[in-house]
């Protein structure tokens, strides 16, 4: 068990290392170096040279990479030249927005997926099941940005339920905060719900076919106990794993959604970095977001192990 955690963690670190290599390599491709991009095309060669030295760009790539990597380990993600601020500061300002919509959409998506997935499995080939399948297909086919636009028109303009765009921090009123992130979260959730729903349904169907379900029925337990205590307990592991994976997609999705709803989040920051080709900002952001995602999937993996008593007990034995 402990050795598994160790293995899994070291695996995650390796993956992160490769991520950093890929990121670094890809962004080295950007034509014209950072100094050129900062100073613009009219910069004098002397100025360029001076800035290159200051930024360390005149040194060979592996030294640059090494320095960058060293910075990463110390949570120094570099400095954005578009904003003239540390990347860490920029992220700190914008992270609450992104985390809010990510967490809320995860909550919405998993609630829908679990409830509907269980119902669809229990009432296989009925209306509920077809409804679930429909949501699964539509959810993964409707582009989030379009859905967002439709919701803005309908719920924002027609019904005026939610503000059309913008973000209200929670310290300026919880109601306003929830209102401002409601639509983005829903939009994001609908994109995620399909995959989750499918997993819940499949693993629930599998659990329902197990022998212990026969036993539970023969004991005459209530339907609630049968489905929630017996079936769901063994059916939950796969969906939790998928939730961890989906979280990654979700973070990627925030870029689009934040753009549609005009939210000042990390996703918007990424878009700016790409548009302005702010290499340091982009490098830092990509590493930060990816590390976050890897960390979450690592935690999910470990959590799943603790849910499973078999592994838990074998660990105590060690």
């Amino acid at each position, binding site marked *: 068990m402990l050795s598994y955690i160790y293995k899994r963690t070291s695996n995650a670190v390796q993956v992160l290392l490769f991520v950093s290599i890929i990121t670094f390599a890809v962004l080295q491709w950007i034509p014209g170096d950072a100094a050129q991009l900062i100073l613009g095309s009219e910069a004098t060669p002397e100025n360029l040279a001076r800035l290159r030295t200051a930024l360390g760009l005149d040194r060979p790539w592996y030294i640059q990479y090494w320095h960058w990597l060293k910075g990463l380990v110390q949570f120094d993600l570099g400095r954005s030249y578009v904003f003239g601020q540390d990347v860490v500061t920029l992220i700190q300002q914008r992270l609450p927005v992104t985390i809010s919509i990510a967490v809320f959409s995860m909550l919405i998506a998993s609630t829908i997926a679990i409830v509907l997935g269980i119902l669809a499995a229990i009432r296989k080939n009925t209306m509920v099941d077809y409804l679930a399948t429909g949501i699964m297909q539509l959810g993964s086919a409707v582009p989030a940005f379009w859905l967002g636009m439709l919701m803005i028109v309908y719920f924002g303009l027609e019904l005026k339920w939610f503000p059309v765009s913008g973000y209200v921090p929670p310290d300026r009123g919880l109601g306003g905060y929830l209102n401002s992130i409601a639509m983005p979260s829903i939009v994001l959730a609908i994109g995620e719900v399909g995959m989750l729903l499918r997993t819940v349904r499949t693993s629930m169907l599998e659990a329902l076919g*197990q*022998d*212990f379900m*026969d*036993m*539970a*029925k*023969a*004991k*005459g*337990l*209530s339907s609630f*106990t049968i489905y929630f*205590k*017996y079936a769901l*307990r*063994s059916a939950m592991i796969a969906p939790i794993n998928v939730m961890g994976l989906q979280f990654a997609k979700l973070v990627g999705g925030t870029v689009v959604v934040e753009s549609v709803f005009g939210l000042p989040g990390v996703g918007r920051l990424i878009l700016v970095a790409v548009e302005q080709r702010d290499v340091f900002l982009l490098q830092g952001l990509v590493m930060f977001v990816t590390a976050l995602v890897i960390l979450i999937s690592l935690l999910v993996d470990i959590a799943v192990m603790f*849910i*499973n*008593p*078999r592994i838990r*007990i074998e660990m105590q034995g060690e």
Partner: protein
Amino acid sequence: MAEEKVLDIENLTIRTQRGRTLVDGISLHLYKGEVLGVVGESGSGKTLTAKTILNLLPENLSWEADRFAVLGADYLTLGKKDTKALVGQKIGYVPQNTGSYLHPMIRIKDQIIDGYLRYTKNNRGEALERARELVKAVGIRDTERLLKSYPWQLSGGMRQRVNIAMALMNQPRLIVADEPTTALDSTIQMQVLDLLKTVNDLYETPVILVSHDLGLVKYYCERIVVMYAGQIMEAATVEQVFSNPKHPYTRALIKVIPSLNIKKGERLAEIPGQLNAVGTAGGGCAFKERCSFRQEACEYTIREKTVADNHYYRCNLDF
């Protein structure tokens, strides 16, 4: 009272949705205090019959019967909920000994008491007390540790004891044991069956013992029903079956029971051929392909006969 029918099944037929017949018009009766052995190869329909009694028939199968009374309640008219309650409250189920009948992620104690809690007004403490008693009664010494365990921490024999204890929690008035000793060592097989027999003796709980092993079952039953291809070939008391078997299939089964004084180099006896699909008999005998006494008439007709002392058989011949 001795003649009270615990189980009264007339002409039970089980079909798939596509109309394939799996169990073909069988009748079963079980009297109070009795142990009834239902014997047959896999595919003979014996487990499906047991599942019908337990209300566990898979959804893609359907059953019909002229009469289906369990413990005086008629399944044909009983509602879904009431059937479930009846099974949970009054029937104990001892499943095949695969670990899969116990939930791997729930502690034994929670699994053993939840059915009890559902049908009594007692609280958790009392339920656990009863569980402890029963677990001790089925011969487990380290009760506390067992109750705290998960199923996969136990050996096969232990799990089956737990299953029996669990079946006894609600003081059942009928026990359905479906191949309770498959995959167990032969010494443990005996222990498990001894245990069931003890329960039967002590509480006079009638038991249906489904098994493929005629040699094992004969020590524990009063009556035996031999099934083949979804039909009952012969039904009689153990003595009648062994001293005076009327059906060639029963005879073959008795012959294949391995005995201890088997000679060196001698092959174990077997019944030639394979179980053919149910319903292919086409009016004739279901066993005809493998029967060594086969006659021309067996192709078209079959005779059901009941001789002295309720000895039923389904064969054109008389032995």
